[in-house]
């Protein structure tokens, strides 16, 4: 008799439940958080890990990530290794405020919070919780879907991550860089948790980077919740540079208030098995959300991006552009859901998904998923799948550009559609360099 996939991960669920007991003992939380954690572990145990029979996970078998046997690291200090690790960090020349986390734990040696304008709060989430932050207590978990397995798992085990608060009418000029690094050769699991709050007309540039200093097997299960006040502006960039053997699951959920603007770019280069959920809920009229993504894979990488544009209010605009460049036997999955609720008249939603297959063995599973309940809306979506433009490649070569470089130039041009709108030059340039290096 065939075992079902739920059975295949049942052991893992039990292991997490056991680990939770230990976690609670070693890391007691304030009552409000303890309640949330306990609810979350119960939800997680009830839901279990998804299988490919779940519509949302049809093309991505997450079993290997679920079954990763890791010793929980509830305490971690970098100690002497900081100096060595520091030189390997991505975006080193990025000015601004940096919070670094190693194996899920705040690393002050690698961080630099710097001067902050009046009222702005940037701190490790653990410190904000310890300091009884009223804001954190109110907002924690408010904007994410607690009924999703990985969010529940994260909520149960979340220890640290970033807390950022930009008060009304404040423009934080320098970017905030959240850096999540995994080190060491032993398998680890970390659950970074970020809470980002913006007041009315506040503005923020946020960069999330996930990377590793080893080629190890590990799981990052990150959750970033963002709440933007009316008229707020956020530029969010996520660089997923995990180890080639890593599992990475993430949820970014944004609540976009009236007239707010959010632009998010999720750039995927690393990871063996990756699932990103990006969810934007347009909660106020006039909100404008852009969710862009780039996927560059080779070997047997599998990268799945699920996006949701939830038009909950009228007169909101959403734009979406996902670009995939897939080589070897790698797999890309893109599911772009556009949900236009009954009241959301005058919605303007655009989605495009473009794929270049560099190899006959690479696969893309891409689908738009439109659910439109309002009648006066404009929704467009388009998808293209093709190879690199052979004529352009030939043209470059006839001018003396070596074949490989010509290919790299064309791929960078393709990726440029996602990279170019990013205003942080350091991020853009380094990502381009990383793409170039990966194509070598």
């Amino acid at each position, binding site marked *: 008799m065939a075992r079902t996939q739920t059975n295949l991960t049942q052991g893992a669920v039990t292991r997490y439940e056991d680990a939770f007991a230990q976690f609670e003992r070693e890391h007691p939380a304030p009552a409000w958080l303890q309640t949330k954690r306990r609810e979350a572990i119960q939800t997680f145990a009830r839901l279990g890990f998804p299988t490919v029979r779940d519509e949302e996970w049809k093309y991505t078998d997450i079993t290997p990530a679920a079954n990763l046997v890791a010793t929980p690291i509830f305490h971690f200090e970098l100690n002497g290794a900081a100096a060595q690790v520091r030189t390997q960090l991505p975006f080193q020349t990025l000015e601004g405020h940096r919070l670094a986390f190693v194996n899920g734990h705040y690393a002050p040696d690698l961080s630099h919070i710097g001067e902050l304008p009046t009222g702005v709060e940037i701190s490790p989430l653990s410190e904000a919780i310890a300091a009884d932050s009223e804001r954190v207590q109110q907002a924690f978990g408010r904007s994410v879907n607690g009924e999703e397995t990985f969010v529940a798992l994260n909520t149960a085990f979340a220890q640290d991550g970033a807390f950022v608060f930009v008060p009304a009418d404040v423009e934080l000029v320098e970017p905030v860089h959240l850096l999540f690094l995994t080190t060491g050769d032993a398998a680890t699991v970390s659950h970074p948790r970020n809470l980002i709050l913006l007041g009315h007309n506040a503005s923020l540039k946020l960069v999330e980077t996930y990377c590793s200093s080893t080629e190890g097997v590990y799981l990052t299960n990150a959750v970033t919740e963002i709440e933007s006040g009316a008229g707020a502006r956020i530029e969010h960039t996520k660089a997923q540079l995990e180890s080639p053997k890593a599992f990475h699951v993430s949820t970014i959920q944004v609540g976009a208030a009236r007239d707010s603007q959010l632009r998010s770019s999720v750039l995927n280069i690393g990871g063996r098995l990756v699932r990103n959920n990006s969810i934007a809920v347009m909660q106020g009229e006039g909100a404008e959300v852009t969710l862009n993504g780039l996927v560059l894979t080779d070997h047997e990488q599998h990268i799945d991006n699920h996006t949701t544009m939830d038009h909950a209010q009228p007169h909101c605009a959403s734009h979406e552009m996902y670009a995939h460049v897939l080589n070897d036997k790698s797999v890309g999955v893109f599911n772009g859901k556009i949900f236009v609720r009954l009241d959301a008249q005058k919605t303007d939603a655009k989605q495009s998904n473009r794929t270049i297959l560099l190899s006959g063995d690479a696969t893309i599973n891409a689908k738009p998923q439109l659910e439109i309940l309002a009648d006066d809306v404009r929704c467009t979506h388009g998808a293209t799948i093709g190879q690199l*433009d*052979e*004529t*352009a490649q*030939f*043209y*470059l*070569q*006839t*001018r*003396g*550009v*070596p*074949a490989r*470089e*010509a290919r790299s*130039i*064309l791929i*960078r*041009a*393709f990726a*440029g*559609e996602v990279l170019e709108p990013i205003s942080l030059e350091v991020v853009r340039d380094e990502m381009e360099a990383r793409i170039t290096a990966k194509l070598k």
Partner: protein
Amino acid sequence: MLLEIKNLHANVEGKEILRGINLTINPGEVHAIMGPNGSGKSTLAAVLAGRDGYDVTEGEVLFDGKDLLDLAPEERAAEGLFLAFQYPVEIPGVNTQIFLRAALNGIRKYHGQPELDALSFLKLVKAKTKLVNLDESFLKRSVNENFSGGEKKKAEIFQMALLEPKVAILDETDSGLDIDALKVVSSGVNALKSPNNSTIVITHYQRLLNYIVPDFVHILYKGQIVRSGGKELALELEEGGYDPITAQFTEV
């Protein structure tokens, strides 16, 4: 001899397009290739430049003594072959300056020379734009993207000036040019002429040959050179068209 084409046969998608071409080009010479639409002129240019999908089934091509057909397109460029495209390719998102630098440095690397630094590169490029009256701002744009027909052709000759090839093939570089641009482009081509290099101009019109005066004119018809002569052959064509020349080759 710079270029020696011997009994060249080539297929495109299984169909024989070039059917035994023989052509010898010496340094310092200008050759014009004329012929009706679809006779194989651009195919010949593509085969010489090394385009994928154009299968040489017979014959050989020597470039400065080397077996040209054995080289990748970029190696042919580095050896000194240049093709000005009949339809220059638009490449959105690829900055012209970055492209030109990659081209120059690719060729330099092939010859074991160090890369050109940014400053010397820019100086060189700017000097060459003057040759064809191109506004420098095109360097900041994507390769050929949204260039007018004439600008595209000028940009091709500009690239030729930059790469200084031994043999340049200009495939209908005159089409799409207004009278003034035709003069500019022709004088650019003439300025690049030297006793050490040679030019092949593919054209339909005498007009261009008034400016770029050929030493030889060849008529390509159904994949073969059916007649060669001096510059007066082009004038003869202008008068009587291809019929009198090709009549004897038309299959019955």
